């Protein structure tokens, strides 16, 4: 497993996530205990040889040479020490297995309780801070809306409502709350149970993680949509158009960009994706075997429940997260991802071309999904604050940057093991939330600052990643293009990127 390191405020981890099969640990404990007995028996036999070799049957001082007896005594002592060490490790292993089992039980209970509380309290959050809660609680908040749409339920947990009213939006940036959200994202099924007051779901839902929850949520949304005629969380076609680039202020011709000097430059080039602004940037570099591309994707801009014009919205996010699920439920390809793929196609990206994909927030999970696509030749991926922990990019290295106070990455859940992912976490400290920015730690501006720290870090894993980037562009300039994506109503969707099911 990879090591950890904290450099310049960055905590860098790599390798697969922690995992414990307690049965295997317990079995090894038993086996090691048997090993201890075997080695102890060797020590006893060595002691026997030593004792007998001391006695000369003919009355001499000793039977065996001193050097031989000294060697046997050393061997006996070492064997005894190994036997005792093995016995101690066997005991430790047994205790560890028991401890892991207790921890898993407690974590599971805590996760379910937390998720249930959030589920039952979701209307309270919605009342207190609708926009913030929609980001913070993600699926949980959306579930509350869905349930309300069906039966008009407005259960309010008075205690939690009071907490939100008392502490306000800064609570959303509390690392402890972020951890709670991460737990809740792994337990949307429990959130649903909390909303519906069903204990049965608490019991049944333990095996499902974030992507599966997202799929269940989308399936629920489909049922609700059919029942109510609503469009909530239902994907639409997307239209992508190229946007002209103005000439650079430093006199560079329009659309010509120098190679990025590092992760900081990559972060700087992610489009803002605001109103009427492009969400996708694509840079074309000349490689030795054909063109190489760096693709940048903006983050979520619309946190509304129903899809409007902006494809970078919660509907797209949820479909992107659900894309990692193995549940046999068909899910449309996220609008944001379709927009990026469409832009890549129009820009001239061909199968087999080498790619680097970069994204912030919802764009981060799009970058991760592209990196995990075996049909694309992605060389590296960068995720800044996206809920991408559950995407296994296989052998494609992915730099995933999160802030301890940012709950958006936490909405993807606790994640899956991925040996090639480098996780970088930084605490940005307390930043006062502003109107329209309920979670300031999620802002691209803050991630750009962290990306600069990544470039300054001497952590060898980050240095390797920077070398991969430098080798990719080989110092050459790029031809850059910008792309603007829009959702279009299904009725007028001829010739545009239509949703495509990704269910197994």
């Amino acid at each position, binding site marked *: 497993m990879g090591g950890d390191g904290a450099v310049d405020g960055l905590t860098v981890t790599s390798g697969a996530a922690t995992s414990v099969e307690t049965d295997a640990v317990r079995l090894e404990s038993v086996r090691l205990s048997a090993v201890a007995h075997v080695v102890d028996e060797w020590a006893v036999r060595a002691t026997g040889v030593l004792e007998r070799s001391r006695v000369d*049957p003919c009355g001499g001082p000793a039977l065996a040479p001193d*050097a031989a007896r000294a060697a046997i005594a050393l*061997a006996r002592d070492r064997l005894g020490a190994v036997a005792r*060490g093995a016995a101690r490790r066997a005991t430790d292993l047994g205790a*560890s297995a028991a401890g892991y089992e207790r921890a898993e039980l407690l974590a599971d209970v805590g996760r379910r309780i937390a998720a249930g509380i959030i589920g039952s309290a979701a209307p309270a959050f919605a009342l207190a801070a609708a926009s913030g809660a929609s980001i913070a609680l993600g699926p949980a908040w959306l579930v509350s809306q869905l349930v309300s749409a069906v039966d008009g339920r407005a259960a309010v947990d008075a205690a939690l409502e009071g907490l939100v009213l008392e502490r306000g939006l800064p609570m959303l940036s509390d690392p402890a709350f972020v951890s709670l959200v991460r737990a809740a994202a792994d337990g949307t099924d429990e959130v649903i149970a909390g909303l519906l007051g069903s204990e049965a779901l608490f019991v049944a839902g333990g095996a499902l993680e974030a992507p599966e929850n997202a799929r269940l949520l989308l399936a629920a949304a489909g049922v609700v949509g059919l029942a109510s005629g609503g469009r909530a969380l239902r994907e639409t076609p997307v239209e992508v158009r190229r946007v002209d680039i103005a000439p650079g202020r430093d006199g560079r011709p329009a659309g010509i960009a120098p190679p990025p000097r590092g992760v900081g430059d990559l972060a700087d080039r992610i489009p803002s994706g605001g109103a009427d602004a492009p969400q996708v940037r694509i840079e074309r570099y000349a490689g030795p075997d054909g063109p190489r591309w760096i693709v940048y994707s903006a983050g979520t801009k619309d946190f509304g429940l129903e899809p409007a014009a902006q494809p970078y919205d919660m509907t797209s996010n949820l479909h992107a997260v659900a894309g990692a699920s193995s549940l046999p439920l068909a899910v449309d390809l996220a609008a944001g991802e379709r927009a990026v793929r469409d832009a890549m196609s129009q820009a001239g990206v061909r199968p087999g071309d080498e790619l680097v994909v970069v994204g912030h927030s919802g764009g981060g999970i799009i970058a991760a999904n592209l990196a995990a696509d075996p049909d694309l030749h992605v060389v590296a991926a960068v995720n800044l604050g996206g809920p991408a922990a559950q995407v296994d990019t296989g052998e494609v290295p992915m730099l995933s940057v999160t802030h301890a106070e940012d709950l958006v990455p936490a909405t993807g859940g606790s994640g899956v093991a991925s040996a090639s992912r480098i996780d970088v976490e930084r605490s940005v400290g307390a930043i006062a939330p502003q109107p329209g920015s309920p979670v300031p730690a999620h802002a691209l501006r803050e991630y750009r600052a962290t990306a600069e720290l990544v470039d300054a870090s001497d952590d060898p894993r980050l240095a390797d990643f920077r070398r991969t980037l430098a080798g990719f562009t080989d110092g050459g300039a790029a031809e850059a293009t910008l792309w603007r994506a829009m959702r279009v109503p299904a009725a007028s969707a001829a010739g545009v990127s239509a949703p495509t099911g990704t269910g197994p």
Partner: protein
Amino acid sequence: MDGEAAAGVDDATVDVTDPFGLEVAATLAARRREALLPEVFALRVLRAELAETRPGLLRERIDGWRDAAADRFGDRMRDLAAALDEAARELADAERLMAEACERLAAEEASARHAAATPHDAVSTAGAGTAWAGTAPWTG
């Protein structure tokens, strides 16, 4: 007493001209060798058993367990495995030293028996037919 002297015949106590003393010395060497050989074999069996069992005995990794504690467990297992290897080397050293002692005892036994069977100054072609002038070995 050093290792070389152990399990051997102290030449200083043997009168090479004393056939009885030589017989006693040969018998002592034989008895000591007979007593030592089973211990050599015991060591050999123990060492062979250790060598055969050693691979896979102390596993540094447990499938399905990945975290910092697993890494520390691996370190401890490596330490124990190294100690086990040292013990195996020491047993091999002891076995070699004791086998060499057995060979020395065998050589001493053979030498003493040979000396005992050969009359001291008993035969001289130059003095053939003359009166025997030697000292009877059993007279000391």
